[in-house]
């Protein structure tokens, strides 16, 4: 195998499924008849009554040694695509070519036989996946060790928790020495320690030359493990690119529309104040430059005089998972006297130490004295997104982008001849 040759080629693959049980069975019978009738399928077939495209004309490659993430909303076709790549089902159009031994973790835990013990199930699964008895005998103990089930390994699987099944399934698959591993949302059930162990093991597997297609709703896991990522939406390939960008795209598509985008004016709640807009820019109104000055503006509307208030904002990562900073006016100083009508509140940040990328902001207005919230922006609706540009002349390399830092710091480096280490 030459390295330029992809390990997996997914070429205009489509797969249709049927909503109706009865029709689905009839179509199944027709398909089986078609197999016996030796007919060649030219081009993409039409949808029949009650059918939809579960996977719709998807094309991409997975190269040897690559970890590819696959994300998308529920029902976007991720698992179906994985099943086609795994070869347990056929595409309705297009072709998948897989070069190498591939194995699935397509919810392997549920493929276990509940009446058999964990140990027996490992033996069965491994032999089913083509492992010889001799090789398996040396691997049984490492698998059991990795799963960390203790004495449970000799108990029937139906006594296991979902997490325990997951551990055993993952441990089995990762030890099978496959060229390509297909993992479908199986890691979710594991506890934190086990997930960490899995990530380490998967990274080692990739370093050793293995390839991976990972379907998971945990975007951090995808980011930690995958270099590239495909986003599926309604069966179609919506985005394909570096994991960071793809996840950004996916998160964006998953968020509810920001309140300010709505043409209907937001009614003022009982508290008397509504936040209409939050804006983040540099002093000239452009995108903020990394580590440069920033202006935060909050537009709000009060239907009555509210007296003294304070306000603040929260900066989060683009996927809203991590809160980076919160700022709130001190209660010791004077407040802002808010009369009836529309107001714009302004705050200036001398240096916003964010690395280039997309971030999100929420804001809140509280009563000056009590600190009780009067209005929230970006909590129930989508937080405002804002971009931070790289500084001019910034020679940040792709390697640094790859690790995706969030903050940037001014650092003074000592230069010249390095001093000898003191003994």
């Amino acid at each position: 195998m030459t390295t330029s040759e992809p390990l997996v080629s997914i070429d205009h693959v489509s797969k249709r499924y049927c909503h109706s049980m009865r029709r689905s069975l009839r179509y199944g019978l027709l398909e089986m008849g078609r197999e016996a009738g030796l007919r060649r399928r030219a081009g993409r077939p039409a949808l029949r009554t009650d059918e939809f495209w579960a996977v719709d004309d998807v094309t991409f490659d997975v190269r040897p040694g690559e970890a590819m993430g696959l994300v998308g909303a529920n029902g976007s076709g991720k698992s179906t695509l994985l099943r086609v790549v795994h070869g347990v089902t056929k595409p309705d159009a297009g072709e998948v070519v897989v070069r190498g031994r591939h194995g699935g973790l397509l919810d392997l835990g549920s493929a276990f036989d509940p009446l058999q013990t964990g140990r027996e199930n490992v033996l069965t699964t491994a032999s089913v996946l083509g492992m010889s008895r001799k090789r398996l005998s040396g691997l049984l103990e490492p698998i059991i060790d990795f799963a960390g089930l203790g004495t449970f390994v000799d108990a029937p699987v139906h006594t296991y928790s979902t997490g325990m099944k997951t551990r055993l399934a993952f441990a089995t698959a990762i030890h099978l020495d496959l060229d390509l591993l297909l993992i479908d949302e199986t890691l979710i059930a594991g506890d934190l320690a086990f997930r960490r162990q899995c990530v380490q093991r998967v990274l080692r597997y990739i370093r050793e030359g293995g390839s991976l297609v990972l379907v998971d709703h945990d975007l951090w896991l995808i980011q930690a493990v995958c270099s590239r990522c495909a986003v599926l939406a309604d069966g179609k390939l919506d985005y394909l690119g570096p994991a960071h960008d793809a996840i950004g795209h996916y998160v964006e598509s998953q968020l509810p529309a920001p309140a300010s985008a709505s043409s209907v004016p937001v009614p003022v709640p009982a508290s008397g104040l509504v936040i209409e807009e939050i804006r983040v820019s540099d002093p000239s109104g452009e995108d903020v430059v990394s580590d440069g000055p920033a202006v935060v503006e909050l537009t709000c509307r009060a239907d009555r005089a509210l007296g003294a208030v304070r306000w603040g904002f929260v900066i989060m990562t683009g996927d809203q998972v991590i809160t980076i900073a919160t700022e709130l006016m001190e209660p010791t100083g004077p407040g802002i006297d808010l009369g009836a009508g529309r107001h714009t509140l302004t705050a200036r940040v001398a240096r916003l130490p964010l690395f280039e990328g997309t971030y999100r902001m929420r804001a809140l207005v509280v009563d000056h004295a009590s600190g009780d919230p009067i209005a929230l922006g970006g909590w129930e609706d989508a937080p405002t997104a804002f971009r931070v540009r790289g500084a001019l002349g910034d020679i940040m390399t792709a390697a640094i982008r790859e690790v995706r830092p969030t903050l940037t710091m001014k650092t003074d480096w000592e230069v010249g001849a390095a001093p000898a280490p003191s003994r």
Partner: protein
Amino acid sequence: MTTDPPESRYSADADLRRPRHFATGLVRALVAARLPASRLMVRDLRAQYRQSALGYLWMILPSVATTLAWMILNNASVINAGDTDMPYPIFVLIGTLLWQGFTDAMNTPLQKLTRSSNLVTKVNFPTEAIYLAGFGEVTINAFVRLLLLIPVFLFYGVAPTPWILLGPVGVLGILVFGYALGMLLTPIGMLYQDVGKAISVSLTFWFLITPVAYVTPDEGPAAAFQRFNPMSPLITTTRDWFSVGTDEVTGFVVVSIAAMIMLVAGLAFCRVSMPHLVDRLST
């Protein structure tokens, strides 16, 4: 990692369009299926009576019960079994043991695939292993059941003839025929439960029109009818081999050859149907 990675292609084209490729694929799959098949067979043999108090007794209880019922009916002259060349209990017992092997064989492929549906929808492996394992299990069970004949032969003081050496061949013929029928029906049976129900109904009917517990009549409409019942020569010849011996093998050979061809066809049908079954089982 493997040095010479195998290449797998999955497209919408019918696999049988390339018959040579399909045939080598099937043979390869059967070879690769041996190890998982033995593993699955051991698993299922161990598990088959795990949740049962009487355990392995269930292997022979149905045949014993049927034999007793026919003995009572025959003694009470409710039925006329005809002129058997051996003690009637032995005649019926061999017949029902063979028949039980046949029904087992016919039911097993569908049962095994249903039981493995979790595995086949999630793991790409030579699914032939499931059928191999099922056939192994059916065969072992059939021969273990036949051990019951030893004490019964001793009790009635019947000595078998050298023809008994052909007995196992006869049993295999019956099992292959039943298994081939079962495999041909399995893909459709996985989609429609009607098939499973129809199998059990027709087996009852088939039992009554097959000379399991009575001698094949020599003349009349029943005799003509028996000529078209493939189970007739299989049961009659095999039973004779186990007891009094016979050299009438034409019917047996014809049906056995047909059964082999059906078995290959069944394997092929199950193989091409599998991806479509996975679609319908997992959505």
